[in-house]
């Protein structure tokens, strides 16, 4: 049976310990540990639902599923279908609001 999700193989533990964490990784850890990432995700989710972005994406998926057939679709297919249009169609106001909050967090985390 075909797998629904294509996961890259888990990286070796020994490999990971030799690398220095990048700034982005450190920020990510700080975001997750403080709970801010979850809050940001919920905010973004809510905004995207309000502006109809989620419905657009679901319609895109439905169209793709209709074309390809219900049983041949994987989650990866849907992600690939949605990503280009999804990233481009986020309303500017939503993006600005989230970026503002992220920047505020970065400033406070750097102290």
């Amino acid at each position, binding site marked *: 049976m075909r797998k629904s999700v294509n996961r890259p193989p888990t990286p070796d533990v020994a490999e990971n310990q030799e690398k220095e964490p990048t700034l982005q990784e450190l920020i990510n850890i700080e975001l997750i540990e403080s709970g801010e*990432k979850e809050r*940001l995700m*919920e905010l973004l989710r809510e905004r995207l639902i309000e502006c109809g972005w989620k419905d657009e*994406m679901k319609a895109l998926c439905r169209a793709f599923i209709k074309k390809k057939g*219900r*049983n041949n679709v994987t989650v990866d297919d849907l992600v690939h279908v949605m990503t280009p249009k999804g990233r481009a169609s986020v309303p500017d106001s939503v993006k600005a609001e989230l970026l503002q909050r992220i920047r505020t967090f970065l*400033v406070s985390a750097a102290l």
Partner: protein
Amino acid sequence: MSVPNEGNDMSSSSDAQLSSHVFGDLLDSIIVDVASECHRIAKLGLDRNFEEEEEELRLSAQARVRVADPSNSGEANSKYVVDIFGQNHPSVASEVFECMNCGRSIVAGRFAPHLEKCMGKGRKARLKVTRSSTAAQTRNSRGNSASTYSTYSNSNSTSRLSNGASGVAGEEYSNGALEEP
């Protein structure tokens, strides 16, 4: 917009880069969530609008009603009006189709009152629990009609209907949290 560090160009541009990266990360996670949701609905066959014939029947029924209307005004006897398909238009819409919310067959002329009961405007519908798996998470607040519809496929429409949108988003979150291993 105020710029805090005007003297230090490097850090503000890498800040912007960092923020965009974080934003992209969040967006990717949400896209994966939506993809997995749609995938689930497709595989389980929960999307009742999936059959095209049904869509077309409904659309053509609507179109027939719309086309027949303007031609009605000039006619002496509206019962014998003919539409673009050469069909007679009955005075009460007698088309039977499936309600997209509960899946029952409904006569078009009775669809509006049916929707009232089905979607929660009526008093009795608020007490109805649609899915047993979410029954445990349904909060028993009396004024909150959105609480009965905490499943994925319905949460879109209820977040627009209800005033407490943050309440529904919170329930959506708790859905995800409970299902994670």
